[in-house]
Structures are given as C-alpha cells and as structure tokens.
C-alpha cells in the first residue's frame, strides 16, 4: 500500500508538467494579450511595449515557459499582470481559503440533504417518498446556479428579509451561497445513496438481520447504511474538489472574494501567471482528491488491494 501511494505521488510530477505545458502554450496561443483590447481607455502602443518589457512578454514563449517553471518549482508563481502589489502566491493565499470554506459548507449542505433523501427514497422505493425525493434530485441537477442563486436572494433577502443579499464575512452570508452551490451535489449524492441502498438491502445479511427480528431502524442505520455509504464516501473527495474549484458562478452572484471568480477574471484579462497558478493548483487538488478516494476505498473494503 505504501509503495502504491508513493508511486501515485511520483506520477503527479510528470502530470503537472504536462498540464502546465499545455496550459501555458494554449494560453499564449489564444489571441489577445493582457494589455490589448479597446476598453474605453485603451493603451497606446508605446505604453504596451513598455509593459510587455516589464513583464518579459517580449521574450520567446519557450523561454517564458522555462522561466516560469524554474520559478514555480522554487515556490514563486509569478506576478499578477494587473495588480502590481500582489503576486500569484498572495492572491492564492488570500482567496483560496474563501473558496475552500465555501466548498466545505456546500459539501455539508450536499451531504445533509442528499444522503437522507437517498435513504428515504430507497426505503420507500416506488412510493410517494421515492418520487418526491427523486423529483428534488432531478431539480437539483437541472436548475443552474445562475438561476437558483438570484431566486434565493429574491425570496430570502428581498421578500422575507431574513438573510443578507450577498458578500462574505458573517455566518448568515454563507447560507445562501452554500445552499446554491451544494444543491446540485445534494442531488447527485441522493441518487447515488439511493442506488447503493437499494443494492445493499437486497443482500443476504440484511435478510438475516430482519429474520433475527431487529427493528427496521436498526437494520437500516446500523447494518445497511454502513455498506451503502462506501461508494458515497469515495465520491466525497472529488466532490469537494469539484465544489471548491467550480464555485465561480456562485461567487459572482453572491460577490464572494473567492478563487473561482478571480480565475474567470484572469482568463478574460489574459492574466497569464494567475491563470497558470490557478490551473496548477486545481490540478493538484483534483489529483490529491482522487488519490485520497482510492486510499479510502481500499481502507473501507478489505477485499480491495493495490499491487
């Protein structure tokens, strides 16, 4: 097992290298640059030339890439083209925790809603409870965040006036964005839990437990759930990574200073170092999340072993 983990970790290095190369060259291949564009106050060519020199954008792309890698392995992810007072490291340090917290809360929402919904649906299969549960699940994946977010703002902040409209800082301000972000994942977890439960409650040992005269509640919670949750638990890792890295729309709607919004901005503004830093960061998260999943899977199910 230990050698398996070490091997997987070593594989991340070439993976990240390939990702960074593809991203870097793709970024530079896309037309337009950080200082181009007919904003109402667009820049004079002499100014653009000075700025390109300042950020070494006038050097050949392969040289810029090598310089980037050389700095990156030493922990310096570069400057931000638009903000002179912050480096990419500063930006990540300030904004990533926000996205992480948002992702965590969304995950909590997803689990708190999705798992019980899935269990109830499974236990009441093909009856009213099941249909309601699955209807909620389908709505969750169908309604886009761009619609759900403003709708929730309208209901809870403008009509009922019990929650703030937007922004970040107080616990009340986390509620609506966490729900908006987590609702879709709640739906996914619900369906997964339901399918898994349905499979488990048909197993022999469940029949044995029932035959022994145990209450339905003990059968469900103590015996069935533990095994039914294995596939669900293994999905939590990548789900958290996806929530944390995919929060751009929610961050925009709720004016949350997170990494997702910054990422979109940097792409639109061709802020190359920030784009690269974010891409690499997200890649690392997803790789680690997947590795954690594989380890957890092996730990939970003794029949699985990696050689």
């Amino acid at each position: 097992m230990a050698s398996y983990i070490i091997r997987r970790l070593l594989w991340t290095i070439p993976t990240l290298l390939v990702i960074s190369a593809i991203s870097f060259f793709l970024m530079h291949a896309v037309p337009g640059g950080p200082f181009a564009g007919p904003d109402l106050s667009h820049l004079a060519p002499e100014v653009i030339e000075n700025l390109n020199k300042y950020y070494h954008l006038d050097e050949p792309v392969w040289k810029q890439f090598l310089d980037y890698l050389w700095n990156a392995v030493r922990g310096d992810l570069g400057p931000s083209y638009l903000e002179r007072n912050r480096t990419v490291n500063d930006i990540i340090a300030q904004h990533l925790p926000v996205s992480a917290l948002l992702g965590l809360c969304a995950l909590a929402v997803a689990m708190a809603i999705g798992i019980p919904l899935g269990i109830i649906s499974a236990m009441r299969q093909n009856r009213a409870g099941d249909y309601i549960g699955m209807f909620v699940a389908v709505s969750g994946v169908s309604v886009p965040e761009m619609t759900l977010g403003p709708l929730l703002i309208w209901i809870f902040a403008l009509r009922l006036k019990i929650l703030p409209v937007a922004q970040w800082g107080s616990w009340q301000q986390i509620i609506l964005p966490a729900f908006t972000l987590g609702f879709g994942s709640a739906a996914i977890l619900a369906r997964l839990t339901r399918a898994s439960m349905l499979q488990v409650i048909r197993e022999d040992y469940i029949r044995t437990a029932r035959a022994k005269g145990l209450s339905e509640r003990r059968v469900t919670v103590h015996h069935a759930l533990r095994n039914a949750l294995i596939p669900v638990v293994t999905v939590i890792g990548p789900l958290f990574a996806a929530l944390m890295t995919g929060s751009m729309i929610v961050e925009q709607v709720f004016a949350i200073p997170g990494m997702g919004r910054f990422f979109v901005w940097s792409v639109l503004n061709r802020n190359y170092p920030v784009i690269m830093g974010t891409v690499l960061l997200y890649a690392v998260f997803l790789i680690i999340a997947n590795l954690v999943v594989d380890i957890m899977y092996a730990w939970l199910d003794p029949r699985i072993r990696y050689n």
Partner: protein
Amino acid sequence: MRKYRLVLGILAALLLPALAFSASVNLRMRINPDTLDPTLNYTSDVNFLDKMLFVSLVDFDEEKAMPTPDLAKSWDVSADGKVWTFQLRKDVKWTNGRIVTARDVEYSIKRILDPAVASPLGNKLYMVKGAEAVNTGKSKDMGSVGIKVVDDWTIQFTLNNPLAFFAAQVRVVGYPVPKETVEKYGNKWYEPANIVSNGPYILKEWKPMDRLVFAKNPDYYDAKNVQIDNVTVFIVEDDSTAMSMYEAGQLDTVDVPSGDIDRVNRDPVLSKQARSVGQLISYMIQVNTKLPPMDNPNVRKALAAAIDKESLVKYIAKGGQTPMDTLVPLGCFGAVPKSAGVGIHYDPAAAKEYLRKAGYPDGKGLPPLEFNFNTSEFNRSVAEAIQQMWKKNLGMDVAVKNYEGKVYWDIIVSGKLQYWRMGFAAEVPDADSFLYAIAHTKYGEKNLRWERTDFDALVEKAQVEMNPEKRRQMYQQAEKILVEDEAAIIPLWSYAYVNLTKPSLTRQYSRMMIDSIKNWKVTK
C-alpha cells in the same frame, strides 16, 4: 441646583448621539482596483478612488467644462502657448505630516515617464518636450524632459507645441505621489498599512475583491467642506446582485442594469429615486473605407440615413442616451450643437436614394455585409435592431457577428472588418480627444483608413489654436467632413445610464466617471 444639573445631564445624554452623527455612505464598484497609485491607474472605474485619496494639480468643473484650481491655486501660459507655469498651494499635507511641494509633482511626472516603471499613462505626457523620447527609451536623459521646479511652490511645463487644453490634460497626470513612501515600499506602497496620501479621505481597509473602507482625512486642506465621514465601497461584479443590495438597503446608490430599467420606471418608490445620467462617451459605428462596398461614400451615407436613432434609444438602449448625428458628445468643448444641423439625419427616403446612387437600388447586387461588435448582451440587441432597420429601409441583408473583448481590437486593426461598433471616452472633454485621436489619418487610430488632408489640417490647427471661437469653427468643419461628407463614422448616441440614489444621499453625477465623493452629503 441639583435638579438643574440633572436635567442638563439628561439633555446632554440625549443630544450627544445626535451631535455625534457620523455620515456614512455605501457605494459599489464593479471590479477590484488594479492599483491605487494615480501614476499607474488607467482604469476609468478607479478614477473616483484616486480623487478620494489624492489631490491633482487641477480639478474639473463639469458644468463649466473647465479645469479649476486644486493643488495648483493658479496657472498661466506664455504668449506662445508652450510654457505653462503652475503656482501651488502651501497647505496641502501628506498624511505623514510633510507639505506637498513642486518637487513631489516633478517626481511623479518623471515616474510616469520612466520606461522601467512602465506606467500606462506614459503617452498622456507626450505633448511635453522630450517626454516621448524618454518614455520610449530613445533618450536616457530624464533631465531633457520639459519640466522644471522653479521653486518649492512653482512648477513649469514646456510643451512641444501650444496646446489650448493642457490645463485639463494635466488633471489626469498631475497627482503627486510621495517619493519616500514609494521608494520604501515599492509596489506595495499604496496598501492600507503603508499608504501616504493627501486627499479628502484616508484608506482604512482594502480587502481585495471585497471592499475598500475610507475615513475622512482631518488634515485635508478643505476638510471643513467634506461632509461624509465614512465611505465603504463594495466590490460587486454582478449588476443584478448590486441592484438587489440597493433594494435591501445595503447600497446608497447604484447603476440600474438595462434589464431592470422598465421595472424601475414602473415602481412607485424606485422611479422617484431614478435619474438618467449622461456620459461624455460616444457610441458609434466606424467604417473601413477601403473595403468594398464601404469604399463607396454613398453606401456609407445610406447606412447612416437608415438608422432611426431616436427609436434605438427609446426602445433598445433605454438609458436616456442622447441620439447624435455628430461625434463629439455635447458637454465637450467643440461639440457641434444640434441646431447647426451637421451630420446625416434619419431619413429612409434619402437613404434609399443614396443606395440607388451608389449603384445598388433596393440593396440589389450588394456583396455580403457583416456588422461587428464586441461581445455583450447590450451590443447584440443594438446590432440586431439596426440590422432590422437596414433590412426594412434599404432592403439590405446584413449579418451580425460578435468578437470577444480582448480580440476585438486586434481584428479591427488588421483591417479585415467592414464596419463595426465602437465606444470611445476621452478623459479630457474636448473635441480634440475624439476627432484627433480617432480620425486623424496619420496620428489617429487609423482604422477608418480614410484620407482627407483637409480634415487633418483642421484638427491639427485647432489643437494649437488658442482662440476658443476659432477652435469651435474648425471642429464644426471637421465634423462635417467626417460624419456628413464622408460618413466614415456613423455616430449613434452619447452614453447614458440610469442611476438610483437613496433620498438620504445628495450627490452630483459626473459625466466623465470622475465622481467627487468629497462633495456629496448624507442627511439622516
């Protein structure tokens, strides 16, 4: 006696909170400021922040469309129009206690011109002697730049040519910055922990992408006229979210997204808080006069005459924009008054006639036409509306296609487009900023690819002419050539947007995106 004191005590306790009313206002901006350094800022959304923190040589009176004294209490210009001398106030203090002097101004100007600093404002000083050579690296001698500290309170600029509106131009580049702070902290000098400023407000807090918090600067030279004590600027990118924040009472003023304008006008409460704010920004169609069939002036005139600008503003743009047949927005010096009748007006019959004269009666025989715009919902709805007008009035089938913002400029410059939508704002409200900058055939943007040496001569002469009346005449003639004789540009309107402001806030509305928060007032 005791009762007396007791009564006084109770009265004081009741009155003191009222006396201690501290006026606060909550504002919103769309983007995180790239920088608060006024020698580096080129984003118009950030201009009002520079005005809160720093003092420039001059301010701008939008009513009179003239520069007014600020750091400079007076200025004069030599007889040949080339040497401008500014006398400074002696009571403007940095927040570290030092008084602002002419040396601070000199330091900042040279900082803008230093190519190693790569300031986006570099070219805005090219009218100063020696400036362009230093900024483009052709000269390494900073001493060759035409700026001189005559004494602590007097600074002098020497220009290459006379320039009538130099005092207005100086507003943009005339913010001194504190040398000792900039050298000590480098790029981080304007962060709240380090910043030293001299304006009406002090920066208390800056949470990137979240908010900026300001408090009144008690040492500002005109502090007694600054009423608002605390300003919070929330950074909210989404227009609908900002609108909701206003309705929930979290913002005191907000710009209305165009999708909400109808709702606001119907709402009994909101409609009273709304008003249309004009901007000195032009929304226009530019034409590549070298690409067929746009090389035929009658085709261009037909396109211009077929656009019903009043309807566009009323039904599509909805912000109270001013339809324009000439380019320079009214409110800029040298703008042509409507009464002069310059430009091509909406006239479907005339449009058909132009097209017939061009050799394409009823649109027959035209090569494929494509109208372009940069990606936005608003631009798309405008483009599609105009597309319909051309179909209806001229029988033309025009395709519309959008390009992403960062790519748009490059493709325009490449010359591949026939005609396209463009917006233009000048920070000096002068016809020169529009006509010379966009349309001069050699020194302007060159995208019109047209040639009228008489136009060039007019805008060049007007730039150095010191007599205002003569200047106005020249600009009127220049506009006639540009938008009427040649129709190389088809103006549509000057920008406007709808703003909502709470009744407790009394404010002015800048037409150039340079609001002066220090002049606003909050009542309880």
